[in-house]
């Protein structure tokens, strides 16, 4: 536990030290680039403010909504593609293309089509996460060891029961990998979209970030960046923990456990 934590703490200390050194070097005036201490003070102040949590809450709600739809859609699409041979060849390469396309490119179209910015944001998050999730599950299904399929069939499982008891569990580690990657894409897409949305009384993290820039409030800007960073790290490490426990259960971890 501690041996895991030390290197991470060290990295944080190092990053803060470099930041402080840059500030001390006088490269930019303190008003443009404040040091770590005033930023942390500002962050502490923000964290005592309920509105700040409302903003984080709004951003996380959007992420959760888009991601949940992406997880559902990605799963269904992957299973359909896996079941229909022809669809696999057609849609398989499409999926790869979609995965490498920055989903923010969907945003202008989404704004025109959906008019409401909430729907557009959800769509961007969805298009960011769904291809990675579908691709993860699909590669998991593709890579199920043929022996396991034979085992299932020899036990009398066929069709849906084979899927439920053998194929999907066997594909789970790859699926979790896809979910993890999908989350990373969703979070990035959401930040891009929130920066672009210019709507009235919204307090989402992205909007606040944009606002801080417009007000030349770099302390707030850096405080928000820290929040975005921490949220990303925390959720990513949750996925990491799930990933490890699945791989552990599936016997996929080497001697390192």
């Amino acid at each position: 536990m501690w041996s895991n934590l030390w290197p991470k703490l060290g990295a944080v200390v190092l990053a803060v030290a470099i930041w402080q050194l840059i500030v001390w070097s006088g490269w930019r005036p303190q008003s443009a680039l404040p040091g770590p201490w005033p930023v942390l003070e500002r962050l502490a102040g923000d964290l005592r403010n309920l509105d700040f949590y409302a903003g984080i809450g709004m951003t996380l709600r959007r992420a959760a909504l888009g991601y949940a739809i992406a997880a559902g859609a990605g799963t269904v699409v992957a299973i359909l593609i896996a079941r229909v041979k022809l669809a696999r060849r057609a849609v398989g390469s499409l999926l790869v293309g979609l995965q490498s396309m920055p989903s923010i490119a969907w945003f202008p179209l989404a704004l025109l089509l959906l008019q409401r910015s909430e729907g557009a944001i959800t769509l961007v998050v969805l298009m960011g996460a769904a291809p990675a999730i579908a691709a993860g599950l699909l590669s998991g299904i593709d890579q199920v060891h043929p022996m396991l399929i034979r085992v299932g069939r020899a036990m009398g499982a066929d069709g849906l029961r084979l899927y439920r008891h053998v194929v999907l569990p066997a594909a789970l580690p790859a699926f979790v990998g896809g979910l993890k990657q999908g989350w990373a894409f969703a979070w990035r897409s959401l930040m891009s979209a929130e920066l672009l949305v210019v709507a009235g009384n919204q307090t989402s993290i992205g909007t606040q970030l944009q606002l801080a820039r417009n007000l030349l409030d770099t302390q707030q800007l850096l405080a928000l960046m820290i929040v975005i960073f921490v949220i990303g790290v925390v959720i990513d490490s949750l996925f990491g923990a799930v990933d490890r426990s699945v791989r552990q259960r599936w016997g996929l971890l080497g001697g390192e456990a």
Partner: protein
Amino acid sequence: MSNVMALSDKHALSVERLTVAFPHGDQVMLALDGATFEVKRGEFVCVVGASGSGKSTLLNVLAGLDRPSGGRAHVHGRVALIFQESALLPWLTAAGNVELALELRGVKASARQKVAHELLNRVHLAGFERRRPHELSGGMKQRAALARALAQEADVLLMDEPFAALDAISRDLLHEELERIWTESHLTILFVTHNAREAVRLGDRVIVLTSRPGRVAHEVPIDLPRPRSLDSPELAVIAGRITDRLKHEMSNGR
């Protein structure tokens, strides 16, 4: 047809001129070419053949996993198949694997745990119910696979080199275990191996396959009293003769 019906009382499985071809480039390659034999109810029959002689293919066809290209393979009753590499589902515990076989057979959820426990007990895996496959030794995995096959309540047990990857001591123990389970039950066993001594140790009869493609070259009834020892000189003599025959077949197959 009526002939087949008449046989079905006595026979647990029959293989008639069984041919299986696989595509090989733009040609076909025969894995089995007209294999014919029968196994009586309750009989323990071993099939020996060099690697590539179509042993696994034979079992896969009997288990309904592969289709014959010609001839027929028929099993009277339910079959269970045990594979060489441990084919336990890695995400389920030993008990979970057995319980899944019970579930797929339609056993009620409330009864599964108890039955799985009894079956694991029968193969001497009591206390290892909650272990996952990667936490079991090779021998224990094959015991669990045996329990899972028993959970299928099959009439015919097909075994594909199940002990080939085990150390000598585990294999000895599993031979005894399997023989005991067979004696206590009405199981018919078709046991495939490339090891002539193992075949003579276990079988009432040993069927020797030709090499590439497989056909029945030879059948040897084994009249040695049970339990047999893998190291007994009588067994070694018979096994030696079968091994010579196998070598002969292999040099023909080249």
